[in-house]
Structure formats: C-alpha cells, structure tokens
C-alpha cells in the first residue's frame, strides 16, 4: 500500500492504494465517485473516461499510483458551479444523447476533451474522436448531434427531432 494524493474535481484527496489499484477503481471504491463506470477490461469501451491534467484518459488503463499529484476531473465535476448542467451535459439532455446512461459519463468526458481542442468539430471529427467510446443504446445519432449542438453548430438539418 502506498499513499496516493491527487486533486479530484478541485478537491485535494489522499488515500492508500495497492500498486495494482486502477485509477477507475480508486475513484469508484476509495473515493466513492461512482459516476465513472467500468464497462470492459481491455481499455476499449471508454465508459471510465476522465481527464488527467486536462487530457482524456481511460481510467481503467492507469494505476492510481500513476496519478499521484495529478489533477483529475470526473463526471461529478462537470456541472456548473450552481449545480446546473454544463453545456455538454445540457446538450446531451436536449438532444436525447443518452438512454441507459452507463456510457454517458465517458461520452461527456470525451466530448469535453474534443471541444477543448477543436471547438467546431465536423461530424467526421466527432465520430472519429468517439471511436474509443462504445454506446449500445443510441446508435450514436443523438450523441453526435448533441456534441455538434454543444459546440454551437446548427443541428436543425439533421434528421429526426
């Protein structure tokens, strides 16, 4: 066991972790931040996506100890200061970009990372960026639409309400 310290959603935290403890496990089980979901064990599904020092990372692919000293943002840190939904979260709700909600935290974190780098992504940019995040419910239609809308683009022409 080693002491691991990091800043999670702006709050300093410190706890013991085994060397093999994954960051996803540390967030969920040690810190109780269960918004980060684990959907696979091969780093393929992206449900556990968080931001580490501003970069998008699959938290099941990183040991907690590797994140010592890092600045982490999880889905719990994505709402506005007053608790209302952030712009990306609001766009997902507005455009029905989620159904069962399990992949959603990873999708929102992936979308935030994309828009930070590419404020007006094309449909192809979005689809390519999301290729590491699996969703089984939406067929991706409304997720792509929501991200386009969150970036301020007109989605009125995209088929279906």
């Amino acid at each position: 066991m080693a002491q691991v310290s990091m800043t999670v959603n702006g709050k300093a935290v410190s706890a013991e972790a085994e060397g093999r403890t994954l960051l996803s496990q540390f967030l969920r089980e040690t810190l109780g931040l269960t918004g980060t979901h684990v959907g696979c064990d091969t780093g393929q599904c992206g449900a556990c996506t968080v931001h580490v020092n501003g970069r998008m990372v699959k938290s099941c692919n990183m040991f907690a100890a590797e994140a010592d000293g890092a600045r982490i943002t999880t889905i719990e840190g994505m709402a506005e200061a007053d608790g209302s939904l952030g712009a990306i979260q609001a766009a997902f709700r507005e455009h029905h970009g989620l159904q069962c909600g399990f992949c959603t935290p990873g999708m929102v974190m992936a979308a935030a990372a994309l828009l930070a780098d590419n404020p007006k992504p094309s449909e192809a940019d979005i689809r390519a960026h999301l290729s590491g995040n699996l969703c089984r419910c939406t067929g991706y239609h409304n997720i792509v639409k929501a991200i386009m809308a969150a970036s301020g683009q007109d989605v009125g022409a995209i088929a279906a309400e």
Partner: protein
Amino acid sequence: MPADGGIGAPNKRREDVRFLTGKGKYTDDLNRPGQAHVIFVRSQVAHGNLTAVNTDEAAAMPGVIRIFTGADFAEVGGLPCGWQVTDRHGEPMQEPAHPVLAQGKVRHVGDAIAAVVAETADQARDAAEAVEVEIDELPAVVDMKAALAADAPKVHDDLSSNLCYDWGFVEENKAAVEEAFANAAHVTTLELVNNRLIANPMEPRVAIGDYDAAGGDSTLYTTSQNPHVIRLLMGAFVLGIPEHKLRVVAPDVGGGFGSKIFHYAEEAFCTFAAKALERPVKWTSTRSEAFITDAHGRDHVTTIQLALDADNNFTAIRTDTHANMGAYLSTFAPSVPTWLHGTLMAGNYRTPLIYVNVKAVFTNTVPVDAYRGAGRPEATFQLERVIDKAARELGVDPIALRRQNFITEFPYATPVAVEYDTGNYVATMDKLEEIADLAGFDARRAESAAKGKLRGLGVNCYIEACGIAPSNLVGQLGARAGLYESATVRVNATGGLVVMTGSHSHGQGHETAFPQVVADMIGIDPSMVEIVHGDTANTPMGMGTYGSRSLAVGGSAMVRATEKIIAKAKKIAAHLMEAAEGDIELKDGQFSVAGTDKSVAWGDVTLAAYVPHNYPLEDIEPGLEETAFYDPANFTYPAGAYACEVEVDPDTGKVTIERFSAADDFGNIVNPMIVDGQVHGGLGQGIGQALLEHAVYDEDGQLLSGSYMDYAMPRADDVPFYTVDHSCQTPCTHNPLGVKGCGEAGAIGSPPAVVNAVVDALRSAGHDVTHIDMPLSPHRVWQAMQA
C-alpha cells in the same frame, strides 16, 4: 404537437439529470455493510468431466472467507427454463439440469466450477487463481449439424441426443405446403446464417445477495430487466425461498437488450451465499466474463424456400432451421426459434401456406436466448433476403414484388397462428420511398462510381409481434408464466401521484414517458406524476420489460388503474358538488358538473379522499389508490419499411453505410423523441449484426471473439445519421393507448436492408453474387467479388 407535455410531446427525460451528473445508482454503485466479494472459478475448456477441485491452498489465502464448490449445491435446485416446447411428434423438449455450480461435468467455457468469497474482490481473485481444477477433457460439440450426428459426443449424458426438440409449424399444413411447391411456377432457395451475437449492454451484470438473519429475509440486488420474474424463478425453483421472504431490486440498469431478462447462476449464488455466510456477497462481472456467461443471441442456420405462381404471387414458404441452444436452456431460450420466429414467417405478405421446421441443438457453447428482437429478426432476415433473391431471379423490381404481395386488408389471419389487427404496409413503403429519396439513388450511384466505389440499395419490410402476450395463448404454447403487466396508481392527499409499475426501465425512459400518459388522462402536469419501478418490495407483481411490451402492456395496466382512479374521483367530486355522478366531467384537472358552472379541482377531490370529513363514507372508502393487471388480447404488430445505401470499396471489400432510412408504424406515439432514440439504437445494433458482430467459436469450443478487441461492436464512425419517420400510424385496435411498441424494430428491420444493399452493389459491378453471410466483413465481401 401538444404543448402540454402529455401524450405526443417530446418531453426531455427526467432521468437524464442523474445520469449526466454521475449520480445514477447502478447495481455496482451499491455496497452493503459488511459486504464480501465473490469471484467464480470458471471452466477454461468447453467439455469435460470434473475429476477434482482442490481448494486447500486457496482457502488459506488472505481474506478468504469460504470457497463453494458443486458439492455445496448438490441439494439446491437448478436454474429453471420458463418455456416448454412440444415437438412435432407431440413430445416435450429434452430439458437438461442446469446447476448453479458444475456437478461433475463442465459444458462450456465459462461454466462455473467454484466460487471464492473473500473480504475484497482482489483477494477473491487471487485465491481463485489458486483453486486447482482437474478436468478430464472430452471432445466438444460446437457445430450444430455435427452435434446431431449419431456418434456425436453428448453435451448431457442423461439425454438421448443433443437434439432439444424438432419442431414443426404448422405441422398440419406440411402436406399442403409440399403440394404448393410441387405446383409452383418458380421456387427460390436460399441458405443463410443468422450470426451468433452477444448483447453487450454497456453495464456488465452485477449481483449482491443480502440476508437479514433476524427476520429471515433475503434481498438480491441485480442487473435485471424483470425483478419479479427473478424473484419467482429463483425463489420457487432454485433456492426454495417464498416470495414474501425474498426481495429483488433492480435499480438503474445500464441496458439489457434481452440479456438481462434471464435468471443467472450468479444471482442464485449470491443470494444463497449471503444466507450461508450471513454477510452480503457481491459479484461484479468483468467484460471478459460477460462474453462467456451472458446469454448469447441468434445463431440460426436456415434454408428457406419461397414458391411463387406464374404471376409472381407468393404461394408457399418452407424453412428448415437449426437453432443453437448452447449448453443449457436459458430462461426463455426454447421460445425464441419457435413461437417468436415461426409465427412471424408470413411477414408483411399474403402467403397462404407456410411450414417452419426448427431443430434446436445443444452444443458446448454459452446458452443462447433472446436478444433484441428475438426470433423476429431471424424470421425477417430469411424472408426479406429470399424475396430479394426471388426478385432478381425473376427479373422484377424487389420493391414491386413486395408491394404486389402486401397484406392490405385487416384484420389478417396468417397461416402461422397469429392475427394482425391493423397495419398499412403500402403507406410505410410510400413514406420510405419519400424519406429515403429513392428517386435520387441513380444519381448517388453515379457519384459513388465517380469515386471508384460501388453503391448499392437495399430495401425491405418487417413486421414484429410485440406487447407479449396474451397469457391464455402463451400458456397453450408452453410458457410457464403469464405475460400480463401491472400498475398501482397512488394518489396523494395533495394531488401528486406515484405510479408503481411492474415494467422496468433500463434506458427506455419510462420515468418520463409514463407520466405523460397519466397526466394526459387527468389533465395535470406530468411533473405531478412519479414512476416507481425495479423493486419487488414496492411494486405490484409484473413481468418486466422486453419484447417491446412496456407501453403496450405495462402502459395499458397504468391506463386501467388510472381509469379506476378517475372513476372513484368522480364519485367523490359528485358528492362534493352535490351532483349526479353521471354528470361529472374531468378536463384539465377540473371536475365539473355538465351544463353548470360548478367545478372542483383535482386537488380538492384528492384532499377529500384523505381527509374525509365531508365524505360519503357509507358508500365510498377513503383513500385514492388503485391497482390494475392488464392481460393483452393479442400481440401488437409494428411494421415498417427500411432502406439502406452502402458504398463498397472494390479493392478492399470495405462496406460503409452511406444512408439509412426507416419508416415505421408504431401506432400512437407517447414521446416521439424517445421513439426516435429507440429506433436509432436498434438500427445501430442491426447494422452491427450485418457488418461487424460475430461470436466465433473454434472447433474446441473456445470463444475466439471474447473481448472488445475481437468482437467488433459498432462504433460512432461505423454508422451514419439515420433518417427515421413514424408518421404512418395505424393505432393498435386492442389496447387502450393504441400503441404497438418500438424497442426492437430497428434491430429487426435493418440487417436484411444492409445485406440486400451490398448484394446490389456487387451485382451492379457484374459480380454474380446472390448472398453473403453476416457479418459482411471486408474479407467476406472481397472474397465474394473474387468468385
């Protein structure tokens, strides 16, 4: 579109806020005080006799509480099968035992042999690796036809063979069907595979058993689409716990698609172990484990033949299908290739004679059961592919051939036992031609050709039977359950309502859509209605959510309960206004006396019900709470027409979906936003089946596509924006909402459209291709072009 947020309004989902902020409560997010963790030791071989399980070293490892083996379950019941099929000779299917932990033999990779319970999951995992298992390996049977050979190794030694059943439908029509084929002007034959799939909801399964020794009460928290069904099956058949001492909770569930209908061994184990250890016991599946323990789907091998007369009218269909059951019978497995498949073989067409033969086969593979669509995609795929092939053989337009044979008068009794109450297949095809811009296809094909790509168009129809199902009927067909649904509507004194439903939402948005119905009936804001689901402790006995049944059956129960509420509220209102009950009208949340200006508000009546001071207690009970159970009179029959346009790279065989359009008739619509989403999701899965997904076993019974590295899930860059339309609406004639169900349509209707399109693309370049089996990988498509 109504502005009041009632029926027909695209209300935003209320469940989204918790899911978007990380505050959902999925089963793995729950932890019970004093909880232990279990890791299962699973068979790594497909077939063998278990000769020894040595747990001594593992039991001494840190944190280990107890290791369970098959011996601990020798006196415990096995997992039951919920549907008994009778074969074509009148004999019941062969039904093997399905133990919670292996009893002397393992029958598929992933079969559970032992269970290590420890203080932490990591400790349990470490100890599980130290459990020594000795297996005397036996030859595995994987291929269905080989499994039926006389000298094939038997999956179950106590059964006569690997044949579960040989089902004929309609057996009495067989001779007439043969005669129709003998007299046919043209017969089209197609052999095809409906590829084996894995449902893969993004949330892996989880089970937590809990036991209160003081009261003798067991609780199971589980990732289920139907907690009451699990309570009944596990309590009555496996563990012998009466339902009043067993609570099953399915909280937020991260998708199901059928795979979370079934009662699984891990649920029974955790409930059993919690009592044995007097500690909560939690199991969280890894994705790798999900691949080898979640029920798989599809896996049919079929020869279908279509007979036509000289005028191209369909005269008969006969099919010969082998359906894989896997190593054991999962909960509803026998029903899928039979009653959910054979009854849909008429499709949207007038075909007077149909005979379906299905041989269900045991193999050394994971059990196969219902996956989104369940039997209906298999029927649709066969039918819509063979029609396309027939059109090409006859040199006629495939859409025209379909239109010529459409059923146009309703109700229509098919030759395969079901009666379609309503539909309009011409209208959905017309709508499809419009939204898919079929008139512009030739120009788009030319554009593709200019880029060096082959463009193809595939069109097909589908029909499905949803809203499962009339209990009397399914009882005759072998179901060991009723298939009604329930709702309790509880009105509070201050006018708000809580609806407790037996349906379960795991992505479908019941918490948003169901209140729209109740609010609409009363004329109040939907925010006054709350939906409770997923906990047997506070919801009436219900059969859960699958088969696109929640609104058609569960919603109907809710309507019936609300009608009872309104009827009683009118009596109370009549008393308050000193009027005759028959004169009371309810509109916009106000009760009024017809022809007068007298009225009382909804809230006045609800308050009077609970504060019955000025109240006819001699005639009416206080309180305002009603329950209804609704048993449907028939299935519902959503139908539609789909069009897919693909581009094929002639150098690589890579297929891209350029356009996909879906025109569906779901009857009345409660929340069009949610309906669109359901169709999108179904299309994603159907395109996944057609192009990408395949559960592949090698000859030794090893699952080669056992992770997301190998099992190709559709990703955002594999699919386009879809064009969906549900403006063609022929309301269901037998349920109070006129709704039909929309959850499975996309997955049912889309695979043949994709395959039809790819075949069309290849043929446009002169390749004499009539069929390619799914998934249409670049390799397969490229090979087809080389032939």
